[in-house]
């Protein structure tokens, strides 16, 4: 198809009639540390997220060493962990601490703050045509509270009794009683404090994202002209604002139980034959441990959509841009995101089928859980239909997006198994669950994050681009390796191998899968080291990456972020903010390669006439 590309940067770049450019004189402190520029805050979130991802994934490698080679010793473990791995063998206590920290770090610090924090900050103002967030100051505080949450969590790694070790879900009574577990002493207190800071951070961020999307769009940017990324970030923020406060309620009650002798979650506890009493010498009774599960999962389930929706939005954008085709079913995509957001609040008890709930209540949660498969399936169909007969450019971002779709299908299908109470009861707390949520939530969201970093790197770091060769290598090792890690876990789970076990040597039923566990652990180590391809590429490209082409639009995208200068200052556009005249997916229409959102029909006619 003969096509003309429409480039209007020149007109935009030199339009100084209405100059709002904010030209601050910045010092190192105001530019890099106490920055209120949404782009700098995005970088802060991303780099902090990468550091946490390194720690979180490293922890998984450490406990995979134990699971893969339960009879070996690794002197390096003693070097790294000291008393927690005496003689090179991980202690059971620290195994649980590592599992707990891996979950907490990956879910909250990497896939919530690192993903949504980075890209909501970067893309919302750039793609809707705003100079910054509704409140840049609160936005800055949002990052600082996130950092504080991280610092508190990091401190808990180094205290004598070790970090929280009762699982990332922190179920009481295990998490409530210091006597039950070393990690439930100071480590758990710090965990709760850190999560409180994290909730504050995510509220500040979320409030800002919603207000910015609703109030600060440029002229012509109607809601249904917004890129799908923005729809996704918007509903992610809605989910966070409505569900994180409930987690906070649950945590507050847990803090009272831990420190002030209340019994919201505790009842009839006997430790070593002794009845547990409160400060006044009375028996602790009357609490309900299930209550915490309700409060936790009322956040916990929306949380998985908080993690996956931003990835979905970015994948939609990357796939449409690199297939050179309009996204298939734009409105269906938007309504699917809305439906997921609403149903996300009605499914939490599917994590609690074996908690003794009334089976009739359970069946309602089964119904809603299966219902949420419909919008998810619509999205999958639309991604595939977008790729179908597209002129696909296999950039690293495209590969990671296709990888995302693959993982989302594989992991989503097992979700339908687990959503059924009858199937969940035998599969609950087995490796089948681990396989399911790591593929559909962890890996898929991680792939969305990678796709976003490779695609928007020029907008993150002054027009630099990442190396594509290293990127493609990084993709293939990660993609194949990830399936090697998590696919075998389905089989382990189906035979009933339980999660959270330190070792299986003494279990006749489960100790015959040593080879499989060794395979999984080997794949995990390979994938871990493959991430250095990314890290090296990332940090090298920040200052030395290739500059993007003079068009300032390396992927020939239609959205507004590609109309900003090579190194946009605080305020994003020099001169007027572009006006929007069309939706963001005009690829290969009427003989044009692509038509950016800010091009009006009149301009389009003028340019076309000049070319013909």
């Amino acid at each position, binding site marked *: 198809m003969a096509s003309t590309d429409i480039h209007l940067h020149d007109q935009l770049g030199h339009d100084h009639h209405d100059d709002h450019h904010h030209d601050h004189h910045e010092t190192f402190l105001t530019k890099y540390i106490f920055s209120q520029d949404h782009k700098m805050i995005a970088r802060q979130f991303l780099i902090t997220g990468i550091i946490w991802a390194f720690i979180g994934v490293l922890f998984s490698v450490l406990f995979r060493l134990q699971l893969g080679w339960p009879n070996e010793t690794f002197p390096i473990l003693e070097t790294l962990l000291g008393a927690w791995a005496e003689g090179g063998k991980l202690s059971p206590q620290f195994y649980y601490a590592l599992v707990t920290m891996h979950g907490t770090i990956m879910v909250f610090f990497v896939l919530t703050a690192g993903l949504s924090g980075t890209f909501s900050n970067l893309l919302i103002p750039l793609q809707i045509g705003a100079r910054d967030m509704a409140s840049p100051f609160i936005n800055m505080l949002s990052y600082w509270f996130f950092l504080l949450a991280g610092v508190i969590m990091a401190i808990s790694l180094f205290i004598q009794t070790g970090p929280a070790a009762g699982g990332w879900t922190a179920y009481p009574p295990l998490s409530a009683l210091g006597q039950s577990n070393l990690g439930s002493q100071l480590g758990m207190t710090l965990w709760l404090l850190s999560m409180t800071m994290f909730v504050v951070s995510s509220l500040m961020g979320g409030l800002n994202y919603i207000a910015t999307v609703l109030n600060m769009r440029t002229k012509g940017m109607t*809601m249904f002209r917004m890129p799908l990324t923005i729809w996704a970030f918007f509903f992610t923020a809605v989910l966070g604002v409505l569900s994180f406060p409930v987690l906070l309620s649950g945590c507050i009650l847990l803090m009272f139980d831990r420190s002030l002798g209340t019994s919201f979650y505790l009842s009839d506890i006997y430790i070593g034959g002794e009845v547990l009493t409160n400060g006044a010498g009375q028996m602790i009774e009357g609490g309900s441990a299930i209550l915490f599960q309700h409060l936790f999962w009322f956040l916990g389930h929306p949380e998985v959509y908080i993690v996956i929706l931003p990835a979905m939005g970015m994948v939609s954008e990357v796939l449409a841009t690199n297939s050179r085709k309009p996204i298939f079913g734009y409105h269906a995509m938007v309504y699917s995101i809305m439906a997921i957001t609403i149903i996300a609040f009605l499914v939490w008890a599917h994590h609690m089928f074996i908690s003794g709930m009334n089976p009739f209540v359970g069946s309602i949660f089964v119904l809603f859980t299966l219902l949420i498969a419909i919008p998810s399936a619509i999205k999958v169909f639309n991604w595939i239909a977008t790729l179908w007969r597209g002129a696909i450019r296999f950039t690293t971002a495209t590969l990671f997006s296709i990888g995302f779709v693959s993982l989302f299908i594989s992991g989503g299908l097992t979700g339908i198994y687990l959503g059924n109470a009858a199937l969940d009861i035998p599969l609950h707390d087995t490796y089948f669950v681990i396989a399911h949520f790591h593929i559909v939530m962890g890996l898929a969201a991680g792939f969305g994050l990678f796709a976003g970093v490779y695609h928007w790197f020029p907008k993150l770091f002054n027009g630099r681009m990442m190396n594509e060769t290293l990127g493609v290598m990084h993709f293939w090792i990660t993609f194949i390796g990830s399936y090697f890690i998590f696919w075998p876990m389905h089989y382990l789970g189906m035979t009933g191998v339980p999660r959270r076990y330190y070792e299986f040597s003494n279990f006749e039923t489960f100790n015959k899968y040593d080879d499989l566990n060794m395979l999984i652990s080997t794949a995990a180590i390979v994938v871990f080291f493959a991430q250095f391809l990314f890290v090296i590429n990332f940090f090298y490209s920040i200052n030395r990456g290739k500059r993007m082409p003079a068009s300032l639009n390396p992927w020939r995208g239609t959205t507004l972020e590609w109309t900003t200068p090579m190194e946009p200052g605080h305020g994003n556009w020099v001169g007027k903010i572009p006006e929007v005249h069309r939706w963001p997916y005009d690829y290969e229409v009427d003989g044009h390669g692509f038509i950016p959102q800010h091009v009006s029909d009149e301009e389009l006619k003028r340019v076309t006439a000049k070319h013909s």
Partner: protein
Amino acid sequence: MSTLTQNYYSKIHPKRFVLWLFLGSIVMMFAGLTSAFIVRRAQGNWVEYALPDIFWLSTAMIILSSLTLHLAYVFHRDNKAKKYRMALGATLFLGLGFVLAQYIGWTQLTELGVRLQGNPSGSFLYVISGVHAAHLLGGVALLLIFFFKSIRRQEPVKRLMEEIDPERTLGVELLLTYWHFVGLLWLYLFIFFLYFG
């Protein structure tokens, strides 16, 4: 959809919008706490008790404080500095009075044998009304800031600048919204405790 394309200054101010969202998240937090209360209550082993009478006094005070703060807003809008200061002071007084009355209520309950560490029916009351009081104290802190601003002597030029600022009443309006909200929240909690406690 064309109405949505207008810029924010012709519609709701972003700061007001953020405040409303923030109130929404506080609602979710208390929805979480009060539904935990209901779920736990339905499981039995629930000690019932009567609320101390002083909670009626605190309720009256918080309603009255909403009225005085509304007056403060009206006076501020009409540039009546002295009356504004007085109304702010009255609100501050009533707000602190509310917290004091709540505190007296808690000690009375403890004397009756309803203790924080006892049956969850009592623990819930302390925690929920305590978290509410913390939110109210946040409002009191803001009131203090506004109060000290109002008694500060200002240079005439600065004052004139402030008087012509199109957003000069915004701060007081936001504070008023928050204060009304915290009052309404207490009314909800009070009725909730009366009905379910």
